[in-house]
């Protein structure tokens, strides 16, 4: 198994490296590369080195805190870390430090992880550009968003894992565009306490990682019940247990039609090849359509608008000039639209979730597969994609293929599956049944073992080595 976390964990326990050395390497790489990438908004070098030395002391004393012990982690800057500000990529947020860690940060610290700093987020976690962060595969391209800094930092090898959030695709979009693994768990798998919401009934927290094993390990550390978030479940699962079991006999629904089409021809080619690989490994493929999902964007934005507007209502009243005009328009609409619109979107969500459920049931599927996104990374100022005469905004284009699994709350992963003709990464999306991240990870791991795209690294802006 190829994994940056696994390799480092073995080296740590064999005494051939130390957490302090890993931390210094991470900090040095950030100094060298992040001037171009802007994936971190804040690096707390002193605290990171302290945590690295602490992990080394624990290991020396025989106290093993788990598989993330001593590993460098990036935290999206919408997640609270005690003593640091949470800025949400927005000038409307205060520079004052917050008092407490988010639950996900507490869990990472308890697991001995070394938190390197905070990664760039698109403003208010509401967008896919994540300026000023850049894509390590081509710095004239966006890394995606809203967890763009987390995706870029992992792709560049600055950290093996970074935490992201996903309301309409914000973990899977940067993972796909940056050629790394991104896992949006089931709604309720990971506590959101201490994380700034965008839309509380659609927000999910999860890992972006260099490989499937690292994502599984990270999910295992951050998942679990939490008194501070009543939606969080307490079921414990070791997500690495079944990673090597393959896909022989697995039934996969290959989703076609809207909203997964149209897509760029290079994306279609890479995804079709990936699906053929899964078939060659013994998976049973069945082509399906879910026509109801053509309403995905209307339902998604019909929920995000009112929920975000309610959460940010004081900010919108008091500092409207500090909010991007496009986001401001969404918040204003969410503030004054009839409540019936919101209820209609909630009702649509229920119908769409049931349509996906019925697809799983009728096909007896273990998972649904699709392109993560219909297009590769857009240019920094690009507004639209053109699909054979059809023009679509970049944001809508990315969100239409990922949001079905926010609306349904189902677990979904993006795993790299090749490149377009410009050398930009393409992602394969695998979505599973509720709380069945283990199957999603197992399928992704089988594909990764066969094709090995996660070991292909950006040629210039990365410290990762091809394994």
């Amino acid at each position, binding site marked *: 198994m190829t994994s940056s976390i696994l390799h480092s964990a073995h080296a740590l326990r064999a005494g051939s490296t130390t957490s302090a050395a890993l931390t210094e390497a991470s900090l040095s790489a950030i100094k060298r590369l992040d001037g171009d990438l802007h994936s971190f908004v804040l690096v707390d070098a002193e605290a990171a080195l302290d945590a690295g030395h602490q992990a080394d002391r624990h290991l020396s004393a025989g106290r093993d805190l788990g598989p993330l012990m001593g590993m460098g982690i990036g935290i999206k800057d919408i997640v609270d870390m005690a003593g640091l500000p949470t800025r949400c990529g927005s000038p409307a947020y205060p520079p004052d430090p917050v008092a407490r860690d988010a639950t996900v940060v507490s869990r990472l610290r308890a697991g001995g992880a070394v938190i390197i700093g905070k990664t760039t987020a698109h403003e208010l976690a509401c967008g896919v550009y994540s300026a000023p962060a850049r894509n390590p595969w081509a710095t004239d391209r966006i890394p995606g968003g809203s967890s763009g800094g987390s995706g870029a930092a992992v792709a560049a090898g600055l950290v093996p894992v970074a935490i992201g959030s996903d309301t309409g695709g914000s973990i899977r979009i940067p993972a796909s565009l940056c050629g790394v693994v991104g896992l949006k768990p*089931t*709604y*309720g798998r990971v506590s959101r306490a201490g994380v700034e919401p965008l839309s509380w*009934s659609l927000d999910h927290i999860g890992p972006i990682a260099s490989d499937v094993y690292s994502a599984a390990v990270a999910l295992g550390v951050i998942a679990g019940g939490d008194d501070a978030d009543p*939606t969080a479940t307490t079921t414990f699962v070791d997500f690495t247990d079944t990673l090597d079991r393959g896909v022989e006999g697995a039934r996969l629904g290959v989703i076609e039609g809207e909203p997964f089409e149209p897509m760029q021809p290079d994306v279609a080619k890479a995804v079709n090849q990936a699906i053929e690989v899964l078939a060659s490994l013994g998976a049973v493929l069945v082509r399906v359509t879910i026509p*109801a999902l053509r*309403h995905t*964007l*209307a*339902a998604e*934005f*019909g929920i995000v*608008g009112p929920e975000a507007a309610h959460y940010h*209502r004081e900010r*919108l*009243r008091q500092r*409207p*000039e500090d909010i991007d005009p496009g986001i*401001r*328009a969404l918040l*204003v*609409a969410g*503030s*004054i*639209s009839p409540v019936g*619109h919101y*209820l*209609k*979107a*909630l*009702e*649509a*969500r*229920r*119908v*769409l*979730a049931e349509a996906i*459920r019925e697809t799983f049931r009728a096909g007896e599927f273990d998972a649904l597969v699709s392109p993560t996104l219909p297009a590769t990374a857009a240019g920094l100022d690009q507004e639209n994609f053109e699909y054979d005469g059809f023009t679509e905004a970049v944001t809508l284009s990315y969100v239409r293929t990922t949001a079905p699994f926010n609306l*349904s*709350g*189902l677990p979904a992963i993006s795993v790299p599956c090749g490149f377009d003709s410009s050398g930009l990464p393409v992602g394969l999306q695998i979505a599973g*049944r*509720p*709380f069945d991240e283990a199957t999603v990870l197992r399928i992704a791991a089988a594909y990764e073992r066969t094709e090995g795209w996660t070991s292909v690294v950006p040629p210039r802006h990365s410290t990762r080595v091809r394994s």
Partner: protein
Amino acid sequence: MTALDPTIVAALLRAAGLDQPIFDPVEVAADLAQRTADIEGLEALLTGRTARDSTARSPGWVQ
């Protein structure tokens, strides 16, 4: 797609505490018209259905 009367939008903005000059009722009315059309499009999905509890939020399935 019909835009709301900007005077009505201005009243809604005032009621929401958003009566600063940065919120232009004409622009907001045009934007709302598009969003309203998107939501109205959901009728095609919902007609004839009776959602038991449209606000329920649980991804778990009763098998």
